[in-house]
């Protein structure tokens, strides 16, 4: 087995090369991501509108109905995909101009690829994923290449010889 220090050295070199190669893509990334976010429509949650109308019983009824439906979906063995991509979720974004296929893999998808989209062709690929509070490991896969260091991550963790990003969802994050 490869010694840990030699493996670390190789990983450091690989990361250095990856960062160097990605520097042009990172230029102005924050501004572009913020602009993209700002352009999104302001969607106030349905519950907020209901609460404002003082429709408390309707709110309670809807809450029970939504939870019951969610519970049923989770428990029943009905086939078919149910990717819960939704507005107001956690944004996963990566700047990779010229990429052909970009996906995020992580704990939340059992490490199956969830595709990202770049509809305006500016090289910023995004997906918004609704996730409950918790800790999530993830990485981007760009044209088959693993990118485990997301600049927007809270921290990084190394396991199984590769880095992954970590994001904490909830707690005001």
């Amino acid at each position, binding site marked *: 087995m490869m010694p840990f220090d030699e493996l670390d050295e190789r990983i450091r070199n690989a990361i250095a090369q990856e960062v160097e190669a990605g520097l042009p893509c990172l230029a102005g990334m924050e501004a572009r991501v913020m602009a993209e976010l700002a352009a999104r429509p302001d969607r106030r949650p349905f519950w907020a509108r209901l609460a404002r109308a003082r429709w408390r019983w309707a709110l309670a009824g809807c809450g029970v109905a939504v939870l019951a439906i969610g519970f049923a979906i989770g428990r029943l063995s009905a*086939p078919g995909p149910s990717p819960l991509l939704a507005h107001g979720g956690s944004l996963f974004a990566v700047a990779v101009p010229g990429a052909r296929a970009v996906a995020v893999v992580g704990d939340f998808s059992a490490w199956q690829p969830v595709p990202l989209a770049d509809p305006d062709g500016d090289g910023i690929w995004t997906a918004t994923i609704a996730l409950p509070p918790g800790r999530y490991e993830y990485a981007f896969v760009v044209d088959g290449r693993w990118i485990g260091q997301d600049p927007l991550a809270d921290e990084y963790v190394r396991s199984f010889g590769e880095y992954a990003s970590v994001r*904490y969802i*909830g707690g005001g994050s």
Partner: protein
Amino acid sequence: MIRRVVAVLVVGAWAVAQAQVPLIVEQVSPAQVLDWLERSSLPPEVKASWLGILPGAFAQGTVDPRVAKPFFEALATVPVEVAIQLTQILIPVLEQGVVMDHLLITASKAIAKGMQTQRWDYVASELRLRARLGAATFIVLGAYSPALRMEVARILGDFITGVSGSFTDYDGMLLFVQSELGKLARTGTPLAPEIDALLAAVRAPVLAQIMERVLQPERR
């Protein structure tokens, strides 16, 4: 009265929903997983091992079909000898009655990373360590929920493989567990109240018990 009933229903449904692993994968039934497994290109000995134990595991709730299906799909993409090796690592843990959801997700992650590095010996070694940590933590911290126990196992695995490399630095281990669980609790996860109780109880001797079991995996 009606308000109380509604409140109880909301809280109950919410609690049940929170008990499930937060996943955005397709919904599948145990029968669909077993059928897929039977038809898969996995080696016959791998299929036989899993088909022999999975029906009981599904019935007992120790394996979630939503987690199992992506794992088997990933397992079908690795070299035959690796599929056999990973199966031999995981089945004994399942036989001990350990709730496998987190460990199967970890195995899926291991395969995803292994596909990049092709360092299957490295991947198998670390998965073996994490499987032993999962089984040992599951037993030693039996008073806590399976999700929290497996989270502690994950933290201990990260400490050994990524932070310290030591199986016996219990003070460092404890600090890392406290730090990681503290960050998790601050997210507002449903595990938060349980985390407080666990942090009050877990001390270096408890971690020593876990490590003793990890290093002597044949002990039950």
